[in-house]
Protein backbone atom coordinates (compact mmCIF):
# COMPACT_ATOMS: atom_id res chain seq x y z
CA UNK A 1 0.00 0.00 0.00
CA UNK A 2 1.37 3.39 -0.89
CA UNK A 3 2.00 5.53 2.12
CA UNK A 4 0.51 9.00 2.02
CA UNK A 5 3.05 11.75 2.02
CA UNK A 6 2.12 15.06 3.53
CA UNK A 7 3.67 18.44 4.09
CA UNK A 8 4.41 18.77 7.82
CA UNK A 9 3.51 22.45 8.18
CA UNK A 10 0.16 22.01 6.50
CA UNK A 11 -0.76 18.98 8.57
CA UNK A 12 -0.08 20.60 11.88
CA UNK A 13 -1.83 23.81 10.85
CA UNK A 14 -4.75 21.91 9.35
CA UNK A 15 -5.18 19.72 12.40
CA UNK A 16 -5.11 22.72 14.71
CA UNK A 17 -7.72 24.54 12.66
CA UNK A 18 -9.93 21.46 12.63
CA UNK A 19 -9.63 21.14 16.39
CA UNK A 20 -10.37 24.85 16.99
CA UNK A 21 -13.37 24.73 14.64
CA UNK A 22 -14.81 21.67 16.31
CA UNK A 23 -14.37 23.16 19.79
CA UNK A 24 -15.96 26.42 18.65
CA UNK A 25 -18.92 24.49 17.25
CA UNK A 26 -19.29 22.62 20.53
CA UNK A 27 -19.22 25.84 22.56
CA UNK A 28 -21.75 27.44 20.24
CA UNK A 29 -24.12 24.52 20.67
CA UNK A 30 -23.76 24.34 24.45
CA UNK A 31 -27.28 23.80 25.88
CA UNK A 32 -28.62 26.67 27.98
CA UNK A 33 -30.34 26.66 31.36
CA UNK A 34 -33.69 25.90 29.77
CA UNK A 35 -32.42 22.77 27.95
CA UNK A 36 -34.06 19.50 28.84
CA UNK A 37 -32.12 16.58 30.25
CA UNK A 38 -32.54 14.80 26.91
CA UNK A 39 -30.98 17.75 25.05
CA UNK A 40 -28.10 17.86 27.54
CA UNK A 41 -27.45 14.13 27.09
CA UNK A 42 -27.54 14.48 23.29
CA UNK A 43 -25.05 17.34 23.59
CA UNK A 44 -22.67 15.25 25.71
CA UNK A 45 -22.83 12.34 23.26
CA UNK A 46 -22.18 14.69 20.34
CA UNK A 47 -19.26 16.27 22.17
CA UNK A 48 -17.77 12.88 22.93
CA UNK A 49 -18.10 11.74 19.31
CA UNK A 50 -16.50 14.95 18.07
CA UNK A 51 -13.53 14.55 20.39
CA UNK A 52 -13.06 10.92 19.35
CA UNK A 53 -13.11 11.96 15.68
CA UNK A 54 -10.57 14.71 16.26
CA UNK A 55 -8.21 12.36 18.12
CA UNK A 56 -8.49 9.79 15.31
CA UNK A 57 -7.71 12.42 12.71
CA UNK A 58 -4.76 13.67 14.70
CA UNK A 59 -3.44 10.14 15.14
CA UNK A 60 -3.71 9.55 11.38
CA UNK A 61 -1.92 12.78 10.59
CA UNK A 62 0.84 12.06 13.10
CA UNK A 63 1.30 8.67 11.40
CA UNK A 64 1.53 10.42 8.03
CA UNK A 65 3.97 12.95 9.43
CA UNK A 66 6.10 10.14 10.80
CA UNK A 67 6.22 8.57 7.33
CA UNK A 68 7.18 11.88 5.77
CA UNK A 69 9.99 12.40 8.26
CA UNK A 70 11.23 8.88 7.53
CA UNK A 71 11.31 9.72 3.81
CA UNK A 72 13.23 12.94 4.51
CA UNK A 73 15.72 11.03 6.64
CA UNK A 74 16.23 8.47 3.87
CA UNK A 75 16.70 11.20 1.25
CA UNK A 76 19.28 12.95 3.43
CA UNK A 77 21.05 9.64 3.94
CA UNK A 78 21.41 9.29 0.17
CA UNK A 79 24.11 11.97 0.29
CA UNK A 80 26.41 9.13 1.29
CA UNK A 81 25.64 7.44 -2.03
CA UNK A 82 25.37 10.33 -4.47
CA UNK A 83 28.02 12.66 -3.11
CA UNK A 84 31.26 11.09 -4.37
CA UNK A 85 33.46 12.44 -1.60
CA UNK A 86 31.13 11.20 1.15
CA UNK A 87 30.75 7.86 -0.58
CA UNK A 88 34.50 7.48 -1.00
CA UNK A 89 35.16 8.49 2.60
CA UNK A 90 32.62 5.94 3.76
CA UNK A 91 34.14 3.13 1.66
CA UNK A 92 37.70 3.95 2.69
CA UNK A 93 36.66 3.94 6.33
CA UNK A 94 34.84 0.63 5.95
CA UNK A 95 37.84 -0.98 4.29
CA UNK A 96 35.95 -1.74 1.07
CA UNK A 97 38.15 0.69 -0.87
CA UNK A 98 41.84 1.46 -1.10
CA UNK A 99 43.32 4.86 -1.91
CA UNK A 100 45.26 5.13 -5.15
CA UNK A 101 47.48 8.13 -5.76
CA UNK A 102 49.64 7.75 -8.78
CA UNK A 103 52.13 9.99 -10.56
CA UNK A 104 54.58 9.45 -13.36
CA UNK A 105 56.86 11.21 -15.76
CA UNK A 106 57.47 9.84 -19.21
CA UNK A 107 59.80 10.91 -21.99
CA UNK A 108 58.60 10.31 -25.53
CA UNK A 109 60.99 10.36 -28.44
CA UNK A 110 60.44 12.26 -31.70
CA UNK A 111 57.55 10.77 -33.69
CA UNK A 112 57.29 8.15 -31.00
CA UNK A 113 54.30 6.70 -29.21
CA UNK A 114 54.22 5.56 -25.61
CA UNK A 115 51.25 3.35 -24.81
CA UNK A 116 50.58 2.02 -21.33
CA UNK A 117 47.85 -0.41 -20.30
CA UNK A 118 46.90 -0.63 -16.66
CA UNK A 119 45.03 -3.60 -15.27
CA UNK A 120 43.21 -3.17 -11.97
CA UNK A 121 43.98 -5.50 -9.08
CA UNK A 122 41.70 -8.50 -9.46
CA UNK A 123 38.24 -7.89 -8.04
CA UNK A 124 38.50 -4.10 -7.93
CA UNK A 125 37.12 -1.21 -9.97
CA UNK A 126 38.91 2.11 -10.09
CA UNK A 127 36.97 5.30 -9.44
CA UNK A 128 38.70 8.50 -10.45
CA UNK A 129 38.70 11.58 -8.26
CA UNK A 130 41.28 13.90 -9.76
CA UNK A 131 43.68 14.03 -12.71
CA UNK A 132 46.37 16.44 -13.77
CA UNK A 133 48.48 16.23 -16.93
CA UNK A 134 51.42 18.50 -17.60
CA UNK A 135 53.21 18.55 -20.94
CA UNK A 136 56.62 19.89 -21.88
CA UNK A 137 55.21 21.71 -24.89
CA UNK A 138 51.62 22.44 -25.70
CA UNK A 139 50.12 21.19 -28.93
CA UNK A 140 52.65 18.59 -30.03
CA UNK A 141 51.39 15.49 -28.20
CA UNK A 142 48.30 13.49 -29.09
CA UNK A 143 46.51 11.67 -26.30
CA UNK A 144 44.02 8.81 -26.62
CA UNK A 145 42.52 6.98 -23.66
CA UNK A 146 40.45 3.81 -23.86
CA UNK A 147 38.61 2.28 -20.92
CA UNK A 148 37.66 -1.39 -20.64
CA UNK A 149 36.09 -2.79 -23.80
CA UNK A 150 34.61 0.45 -25.08
CA UNK A 151 34.81 0.82 -28.85
CA UNK A 152 35.35 4.57 -28.79
CA UNK A 153 38.01 6.39 -26.79
CA UNK A 154 37.02 7.81 -23.46
CA UNK A 155 39.32 10.68 -24.18
CA UNK A 156 40.89 11.93 -27.39
CA UNK A 157 42.98 15.10 -27.45
CA UNK A 158 44.76 15.66 -30.77
CA UNK A 159 46.95 18.44 -29.39
CA UNK A 160 47.43 18.01 -25.69
CA UNK A 161 47.93 20.92 -23.31
CA UNK A 162 48.46 20.87 -19.57
CA UNK A 163 45.20 20.51 -17.72
CA UNK A 164 43.53 19.13 -14.64
CA UNK A 165 40.13 17.54 -14.10
CA UNK A 166 38.29 17.20 -10.82
CA UNK A 167 36.11 14.23 -11.63
CA UNK A 168 34.40 14.06 -8.27
CA UNK A 169 32.88 17.50 -8.87
CA UNK A 170 32.50 17.80 -12.63
CA UNK A 171 31.47 14.24 -13.45
CA UNK A 172 30.55 12.38 -10.26
CA UNK A 173 31.23 8.68 -10.79
CA UNK A 174 31.86 9.50 -14.45
CA UNK A 175 35.25 7.84 -14.57
CA UNK A 176 34.93 4.27 -13.37
CA UNK A 177 37.32 1.69 -14.79
CA UNK A 178 36.05 -1.84 -14.38
CA UNK A 179 39.20 -3.62 -15.45
CA UNK A 180 41.55 -2.04 -17.98
CA UNK A 181 42.57 1.39 -19.18
CA UNK A 182 44.89 2.16 -22.05
CA UNK A 183 46.60 5.52 -22.52
CA UNK A 184 48.60 6.38 -25.61
CA UNK A 185 50.74 9.49 -26.07
CA UNK A 186 52.22 10.33 -29.47
CA UNK A 187 54.87 13.00 -29.85
CA UNK A 188 54.62 14.83 -33.19
CA UNK A 189 57.59 17.05 -32.46
CA UNK A 190 61.12 16.58 -33.77
CA UNK A 191 62.57 16.65 -30.24
CA UNK A 192 61.99 14.60 -27.10
CA UNK A 193 58.93 15.72 -25.16
CA UNK A 194 57.68 14.71 -21.76
CA UNK A 195 54.41 14.30 -19.95
CA UNK A 196 53.79 14.25 -16.22
CA UNK A 197 50.59 12.68 -14.98
CA UNK A 198 49.05 12.79 -11.51
CA UNK A 199 45.90 10.91 -10.67
CA UNK A 200 43.92 10.32 -7.54
CA UNK A 201 41.31 7.65 -7.16
CA UNK A 202 40.26 4.62 -5.22
CA UNK A 203 40.22 0.92 -5.87
CA UNK A 204 36.80 -0.28 -4.74
CA UNK A 205 35.75 -3.90 -4.51
CA UNK A 206 33.80 -4.82 -7.66
CA UNK A 207 31.00 -6.57 -5.76
CA UNK A 208 30.52 -3.52 -3.53
CA UNK A 209 30.37 -1.19 -6.53
CA UNK A 210 27.83 -3.38 -8.34
CA UNK A 211 25.65 -3.63 -5.24
CA UNK A 212 25.83 0.08 -4.44
CA UNK A 213 25.17 1.05 -8.07
CA UNK A 214 21.93 -0.93 -8.01
CA UNK A 215 20.91 0.64 -4.70
CA UNK A 216 21.66 4.12 -6.09
CA UNK A 217 19.47 3.42 -9.12
CA UNK A 218 16.64 2.13 -6.94
CA UNK A 219 16.83 5.12 -4.61
CA UNK A 220 16.98 7.56 -7.50
CA UNK A 221 13.89 6.00 -9.08
CA UNK A 222 12.04 6.14 -5.76
CA UNK A 223 12.89 9.68 -4.79
CA UNK A 224 13.00 11.53 -8.09
CA UNK A 225 9.24 11.07 -8.42
CA UNK A 226 7.49 13.98 -6.68
CA UNK A 227 5.58 12.69 -3.66
CA UNK A 228 1.81 12.90 -3.44
CA UNK A 229 1.21 16.00 -1.35
CA UNK A 230 -1.92 16.01 0.79
CA UNK A 231 -2.86 19.63 1.13
CA UNK A 232 -6.59 19.57 1.46
CA UNK A 233 -6.96 21.14 4.88
Amino acid sequence: MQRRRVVPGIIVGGASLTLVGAIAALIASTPGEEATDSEKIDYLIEASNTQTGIISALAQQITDLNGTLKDIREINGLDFAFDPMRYITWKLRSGEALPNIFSYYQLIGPAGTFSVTYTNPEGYVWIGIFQSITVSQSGVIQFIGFVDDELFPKSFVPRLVSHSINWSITIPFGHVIKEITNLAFTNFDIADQWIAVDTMGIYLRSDVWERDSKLMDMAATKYTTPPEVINDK
Partner: protein
Amino acid sequence: MINKNGTYKCPVCEVIGTIDDRTISVRVQCSERGTAWPTHRDCEWSKTIDNIDISKLERIS
Protein backbone atom coordinates in the same frame (compact mmCIF):
# COMPACT_ATOMS: atom_id res chain seq x y z
CA MET B 1 69.63 1.49 -36.91
CA ILE B 2 69.01 -1.58 -34.75
CA ASN B 3 65.66 -3.27 -35.27
CA LYS B 4 64.20 -3.39 -31.77
CA ASN B 5 60.79 -4.79 -32.70
CA GLY B 6 59.55 -7.53 -30.42
CA THR B 7 58.12 -8.29 -27.01
CA TYR B 8 60.35 -8.03 -23.96
CA LYS B 9 60.24 -8.27 -20.19
CA CYS B 10 62.15 -6.15 -17.73
CA PRO B 11 64.08 -8.55 -15.46
CA VAL B 12 63.69 -6.22 -12.48
CA CYS B 13 60.01 -5.22 -12.47
CA GLU B 14 58.82 -7.95 -14.85
CA VAL B 15 56.79 -5.44 -16.83
CA ILE B 16 56.16 -6.78 -20.31
CA GLY B 17 56.16 -4.47 -23.28
CA THR B 18 56.19 -4.50 -27.03
CA ILE B 19 58.20 -2.40 -29.42
CA ASP B 20 56.75 -1.86 -32.85
CA ASP B 21 58.79 0.63 -34.88
CA ARG B 22 58.48 3.85 -32.89
CA THR B 23 55.70 2.67 -30.61
CA ILE B 24 56.35 1.34 -27.12
CA SER B 25 53.43 -0.47 -25.47
CA VAL B 26 53.77 -1.59 -21.87
CA ARG B 27 51.33 -3.47 -19.67
CA VAL B 28 51.22 -2.72 -15.97
CA GLN B 29 49.42 -4.95 -13.51
CA CYS B 30 48.29 -2.77 -10.61
CA SER B 31 48.24 -4.18 -7.13
CA GLU B 32 46.28 -3.50 -3.98
CA ARG B 33 49.39 -1.85 -2.59
CA GLY B 34 49.14 0.83 -5.24
CA THR B 35 50.20 1.69 -8.74
CA ALA B 36 53.64 2.74 -9.79
CA TRP B 37 55.19 3.51 -13.13
CA PRO B 38 58.03 3.04 -13.61
CA THR B 39 58.49 0.79 -10.63
CA HIS B 40 62.22 1.35 -10.37
CA ARG B 41 64.85 3.85 -11.36
CA ASP B 42 66.30 3.52 -14.86
CA CYS B 43 63.73 0.99 -16.05
CA GLU B 44 64.37 0.57 -19.74
CA TRP B 45 60.66 0.93 -20.45
CA SER B 46 60.67 4.47 -19.12
CA LYS B 47 63.19 5.57 -21.75
CA THR B 48 62.48 6.86 -25.21
CA ILE B 49 62.47 4.48 -28.14
CA ASP B 50 65.90 5.75 -29.20
CA ASN B 51 67.43 5.15 -25.79
CA ILE B 52 66.03 1.76 -24.83
CA ASP B 53 68.80 -0.79 -24.50
CA ILE B 54 67.12 -4.05 -25.45
CA SER B 55 70.14 -6.00 -24.23
CA LYS B 56 68.95 -5.17 -20.70
CA LEU B 57 65.55 -6.72 -21.39
CA GLU B 58 64.54 -10.37 -21.73
CA ARG B 59 63.19 -11.14 -25.16
CA ILE B 60 59.89 -13.03 -25.11
CA SER B 61 59.02 -13.01 -28.80
